[in-house]
């Protein structure tokens, strides 16, 4: 038995993230930031699991995860953009995201993720400082009898008090809808006609971590709001 046979599946340690391997995004809100997991967040800790049974297909879990990695941006609901790393979804790579705070919003929240872990049957993203959630989210597939099941499982806290307030007021439900639609799109892509996504949410820790309330200084939400409000000033400056 070889020890540490997972060694190639994990990202290498990194002090500060770099999005140098991403093309196409207009805003890089990730480079220079640290990663931030569920322990570094502010809000209640939730474990959310989204599952879809890929009925009527004969794909193996490896096939599904390969398709998921290769087409990840196309499974996202409309309005959200995922700028994949040029090297693909591989350990240590960074992707940039533009996400509308609410569906249809012209304003986009610019943030990103780092690929924390990837193997043939799963891959995991970890969020950077400033993201609305301090989270890991794992995308995986496994067999249940004759059926392959695709799953997204998040371990998440909101990052700061403003994000927690937004979460309580509706962002939580929007986030659930986002991942449900993503799994539906994946299932349709592999040939499921009427995908049904099962959602389970468990509150792992009800406490809010007030010692991390200062995360607000990195907030992508506030940075985006500031960027939007100062857009006319930048426009005038450029013209004149």
């Amino acid at each position, binding site marked *: 038995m070889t020890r*540490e046979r997972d060694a190639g599946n994990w990202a290498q340690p*990194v002090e500060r993230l770099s999005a140098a391997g991403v093309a196409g995004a207009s805003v890089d809100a990730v480079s220079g930031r640290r990663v931030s997991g569920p*322990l570094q967040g502010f809000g209640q800790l939730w*474990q959310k699991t989204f599952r879809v049974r890929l009925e009527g297909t004969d794909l193996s879990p490896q096939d599904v995860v390969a398709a998921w990695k290769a087409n990840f941006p196309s499974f996202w609901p409309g309005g959200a953009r995922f700028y994949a790393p040029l090297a693909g979804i591989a350990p240590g790579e960074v992707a940039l995201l533009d996400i509308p705070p609410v569906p249809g919003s012209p304003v986009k929240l610019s943030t990103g993720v780092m690929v924390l872990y990837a193997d043939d049957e799963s891959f*995991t993203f970890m969020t950077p400082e400033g993201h609305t959630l301090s989270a*890991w989210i794992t995308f995986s597939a496994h067999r249940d009898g004759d059926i392959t099941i695709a799953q997204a499982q998040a*371990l998440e806290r909101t990052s700061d008090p403003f994000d927690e307030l937004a979460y309580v007021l509706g962002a939580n439900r929007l986030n659930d809808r986002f991942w449900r639609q993503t799994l539906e799109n994946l299932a349709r892509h592999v040939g499921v006609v009427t995908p049904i996504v099962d959602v389970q949410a468990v509150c792992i820790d009800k406490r809010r971590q007030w010692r991390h309330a200062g995360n607000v200084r990195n907030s992508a939400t506030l940075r985006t709001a500031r960027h939007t409000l100062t857009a006319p000033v930048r426009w005038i400056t450029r013209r004149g």
Partner: protein
Amino acid sequence: MTTTTIGLERVGSAALLRIGGDVTTASDDELTSAFGAAIDDGATAVILDFSGMEYMNSGGIGLLVTLLVRAQRSGVRLLATGLSDHYRQILSLTRLDEAIEIQPDEATALAAVAR
């Protein structure tokens, strides 16, 4: 893939959980059960000994978060020992080392608990 093996030993006020094999999401029941037994037994600290661990994926790291939350809720210290450089790097990468006390070996971990 091999299964998880968990050995539970009480040393003074600490419980020593010797973790072997693979640590993945599938290890949840065994790990949670052993951890619960340690807390129910009145341990004030739980030392996770990873020297027998052969494989861990991101699901396994997720389990450590839930154990940590449970330890904090119960007022129990959580320590880790027996980590290879590779797994020590993973705890650093995921910033779990900010909450789990990492000790180089079992004796040092037990001494840290006794202090």
